[in-house]
């Protein structure tokens, strides 16, 4: 895990230096990979949620939760870097005619409600089930939302920001791909870290409960009378 992180740091400080064109355009290398990874994370979380509903195994729900959690954190980065980019390019902190950014904001707002949803369900089984349903629904929502917003914006502004598409010079593309891979690795690493810490905390709680229960001496009170029914 440490290895991945250091490799990532190397990639990060090396790659942008490589492609020397563009000035503001460099934000692209952090903004777009962040966004792509976050969105894929959301969709993966939906699949993980479906796995939970299928198996009823709580570890799938925990994975789905952590994936959404990390994607939301990445989402904060996306919106912040996006705003800075907009300020640099268009002189405004926020523009509504960048369909991808607007879609992302909507998706981000939707996933922000994941937390109040989780926290307001007490029963763990039900919480896991409902959170999974949310993850699936929201995961399906991501592409639909992008279709709708893109259609809406291109109606007013046929101009499409083409540098996000494939046609960029080889050097830039290489940097971009490396940045994307690095970001994906960072995501996976952080998800693992968070999952490990969550599991550690849960097991500690269980251990404490076990130790304390032993002290209070025995769980069940003694029976008063038991003569179970027998078949005749």
């Amino acid at each position, binding site marked *: 895990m440490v290895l991945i992180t250091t490799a990532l740091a190397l990639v990060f400080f090396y790659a942008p230096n490589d492609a020397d064109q563009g000035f503001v355009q460099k934000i692209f290398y952090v903004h777009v990979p962040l966004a792509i990874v976050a969105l894929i994370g959301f969709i993966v979380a939906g699949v993980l949620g479906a796995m939970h509903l299928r198996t009823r195994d709580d570890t799938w729900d925990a994975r789905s939760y952590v994936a959404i959690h990390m994607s939301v954190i990445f989402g904060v980065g996306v919106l912040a870097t996006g705003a800075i980019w907009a300020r640099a390019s268009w002189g405004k902190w926020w523009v509504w005619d960048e369909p991808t950014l607007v879609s992302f904001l909507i998706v981000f707002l939707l996933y922000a409600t994941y937390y109040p949803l989780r926290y307001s369900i*007490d*029963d*763990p*089984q039900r919480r896991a089930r409902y959170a999974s349903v949310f993850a699936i629904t929201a995961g399906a929502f991501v592409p639909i939302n992008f279709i709708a917003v893109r259609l809406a914006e291109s109606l007013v502004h046929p101009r499409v920001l083409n540098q996000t598409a494939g046609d960029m010079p080889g050097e830039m593309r290489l940097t971009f791909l490396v940045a994307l891979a690095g970001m994906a690795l960072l995501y996976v690493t952080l998800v693992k870290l968070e999952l490990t810490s969550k599991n550690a905390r849960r097991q500690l709680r269980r251990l404490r409960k076990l130790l304390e229960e032993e002290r209070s001496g025995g*769980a*069940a*009170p*003694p*029976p*008063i*009378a*038991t*003569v*179970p*029914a*027998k*078949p005749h």
Partner: protein
Amino acid sequence: MTVAVEPAIESSQGSQRARAESSTFAVALDQVVRHYGERVALRQVTLRLEQGRTLAVFGPNGAGKTTLLRMLATLLLPHEGELRVLGHVLPREAHRVRPHVGLLAHEPLLYRDLSGRENLRFYARLYDIEAPEVRIAHLLESTAMTTRSDEPVRNLSRGMAQRIGICRAVLHRPELLLLDEPRAHLDPEAAAMAEPLIGARTGVTRVLVTHEIEHGLAEADHVLGLREGSVLIDAPAAQLDPRDVRALYGAGA
């Protein structure tokens, strides 16, 4: 839990025998556990109830009585253990159990803005009952509710709503009746009227949750005593003294 030391084939035969045996009972629970969050509502409850018998469930508040009833009514999933109702495994075969179970819960499960008759009609449609109007008229007659059956339930007293609730619970002629304090809010006369519908002489298997110890013991064939989710009493009613049951409630016992 004993560890199986015998060869695998034999142990699987053994469990098959246990399953065949448990399917002859109307209600069979094996080591059933249910949590609510961190709290354990039922811990390893094992229980057998024969067809046509009445089980009285006693226990202080929070003992798990309602949890048990809701589980038998297919409303709650067991978290561990095996649960069979009328020979079907829950929750997998819940759809086979549902047509034959009637629950009279704490709440009468009626829509307050509809009349008693409309409520019964609604449930008759859900249960797909034949000749619903005849059945409804008969039930309303036997609970002496015919004259007030077209008023919205919100205008009825709690006891009258309970009478409609009883009609609702037995509407589809269930084979297993789950009764949560059925006589609550009923005056003696109404309780007597309800007797042919939900009483011991119906011949239906019944699970009766109650706090009236003497009455419950008189009604029951078998008794289950719960406290904090654990079974403290599991014995024929004839072998029990009201004092044994009272010990469930008493501090320390």
